């Protein structure tokens, strides 16, 4: 029996670590996606932001966020209480002393592997923000916001659902984080976009919407594929254990459905773009894949593969329309992250009751509303404080020359583009 427990624990830990590594890989995905969709002169800076935000997320979550989100014993179901650093690893003797049914209520994998899996999720949430405020927000104020979001805002709302807080008690259902991760990131992004304003030249005086095309679409495509691969870890790991037949079936179902939703999103976005815009706009197709993935994230287990495809497809339609709509109301999001993670995230939450009878539409809407409002208010306040202290936006001249030179002192492609450094 002890040998069985050893193997179970080891298998589930390996599974969890592999899934976590896949999610970590999403950091590269966001970096490439965003670097591909900004203009060449703003590429170094967005890369620097992405590398740095991942790092800050990991440090802040280790220092305080993880305990906030998964408190030993919470003060109440709204406020977890604060404590620092990580707890001790599971003691082998204790682990091996459990018997039979006790097992799954105890610790069935390494505590460190749980932290690893969780920490890469935080980074994902923050990565969503960088793309939306790209090409005009200053580097250091952005990183200051990152400290607050990853150390506090994300973990607190995360506690409400995944840490056993009031959203969980209420029956709110969010398997892998359409709300907890994606809507959170998108809402923080929305707050940032509001406060930093649109890129210069994006909206003409005459009400015209101008395009500022991304510089490197293969990179954006690569980023999307990386995210897609990473999502198998994101959703697949959220089953948490794999070590018996039912769990293994569940993980496999999650893999299949995650993929199905992505392909549904691709085809739907491709067709929607063709119909609405008259062209097979690759950037919309990429957004469609991601929207499909976000849509299924709230419930990747229960749907049949066909249903998962359709849920993803609806996400793919939504995202194209949302990108166009946000542009109309002058919310300037260079990479479409608010549409992909926010709008499709809400759709994902709302779609849960279709296949999961334990969820109710009302609770799902309540959950979405709570996350949205809390993150919006908390983010707005944070952005405003940072703005008052340091300013959020580069000068007009710096924006013209590109933030790569003004913020990082380096061009991303010094030999490929005309030198934009001087007027």
């Amino acid at each position: 029996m002890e040998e069985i427990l050893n193997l179970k624990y080891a298998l589930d830990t390996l599974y969890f670590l592999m899934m976590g590594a896949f999610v970590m890989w999403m950091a590269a995905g966001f970096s490439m996606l965003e670097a591909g969709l900004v203009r060449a002169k703003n590429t170094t800076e967005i890369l620097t932001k992405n590398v740095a935000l991942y790092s800050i997320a990991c440090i802040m979550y280790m220092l305080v966020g993880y305990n906030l989100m998964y408190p030993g014993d919470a003060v109440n179901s709204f406020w977890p209480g604060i404590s620092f650093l990580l707890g001790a690893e599971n003691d082998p003797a204790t682990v091996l002393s459990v018997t039979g049914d006790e097992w799954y209520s105890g610790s069935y994998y390494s505590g460190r592997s749980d932290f690893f899996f969780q920490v890469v999720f935080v980074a994902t949430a923050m990565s969503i923000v960088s793309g939306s405020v790209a090409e005009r927000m200053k580097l250091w104020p952005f990183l200051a916001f990152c400290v607050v979001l990853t150390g506090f805002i994300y973990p607190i709302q995360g506690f409400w659902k995944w840490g056993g807080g009031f959203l969980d008690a209420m029956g709110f259902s969010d398997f892998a984080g359409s709300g907890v991760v994606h809507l959170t990131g998108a809402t923080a992004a929305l707050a940032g976009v509001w406060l930093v304003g649109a890129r210069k030249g994006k909206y003409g005086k005459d009400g015209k919407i101008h395009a500022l095309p991304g510089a490197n679409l293969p990179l954006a495509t690569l980023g999307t594929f990386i995210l897609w691969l990473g999502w198998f870890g994101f959703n697949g790991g959220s089953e948490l254990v794999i070590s018996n037949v039912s769990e293994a079936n569940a993980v496999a179902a999650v893999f299949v459905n995650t993929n199905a939703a992505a392909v549904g999103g691709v085809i739907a976005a491709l067709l929607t773009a063709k119909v609405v815009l008259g062209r097979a706009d690759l950037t919309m197709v990429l957004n469609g894949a991601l929207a499909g993935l976000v849509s299924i994230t709230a419930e990747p287990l229960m749907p049949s593969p066909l249903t998962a495809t359709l849920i993803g497809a609806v996400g793919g339609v939504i995202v194209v329309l949302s990108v166009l709509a946000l542009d109309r109301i002058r919310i300037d999001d260079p990479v479409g992250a608010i549409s992909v993670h926010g709008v499709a995230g809400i759709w994902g939450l709302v779609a849960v009751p279709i296949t999961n009878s334990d969820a109710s539409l009302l609770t799902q809407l309540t959950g979405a509303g709570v996350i949205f409002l809390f993150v919006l208010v908390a983010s707005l306040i944070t952005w405003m404080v940072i703005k008052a202290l340091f300013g959020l936006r580069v000068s007009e001249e710096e924006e013209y020359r590109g933030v790569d030179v003004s913020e990082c002192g380096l061009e991303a492609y010094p030999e490929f583009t005309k030198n934009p450094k001087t007027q």
Partner: protein
Amino acid sequence: MRLVSAVIKPFRLDDVRDALSAIGVKGMTVTEVKGFGRQKGHTELYRGAEYAVDFLPKVKLEVAISTDLVDQAIEAISSAAKTGKIGDGKIFVFDIDQAVRIRTGETGTDAL
């Protein structure tokens, strides 16, 4: 006929084009060039090492026009391109011997 050739700051190109259109100029040709002059380049750092950016990005605009339009064109370019800061650029005027529109074979000012 004259060729008015102006080296200007790149971000003024659209303004200059509009100013020329306003006085009836129908066509022009634009080249990306690098300029060296009183406006000095600067030094960048990459991994702690320096590199000099001696040549600055400029745009060269060439407009063939009839001789009587030259002063207006100079005026239009000057006011649209001027920022008052060093490096605003120069205008040079050349004599054109002959002009041909390839599509129609028209020559002289008709070709412009």
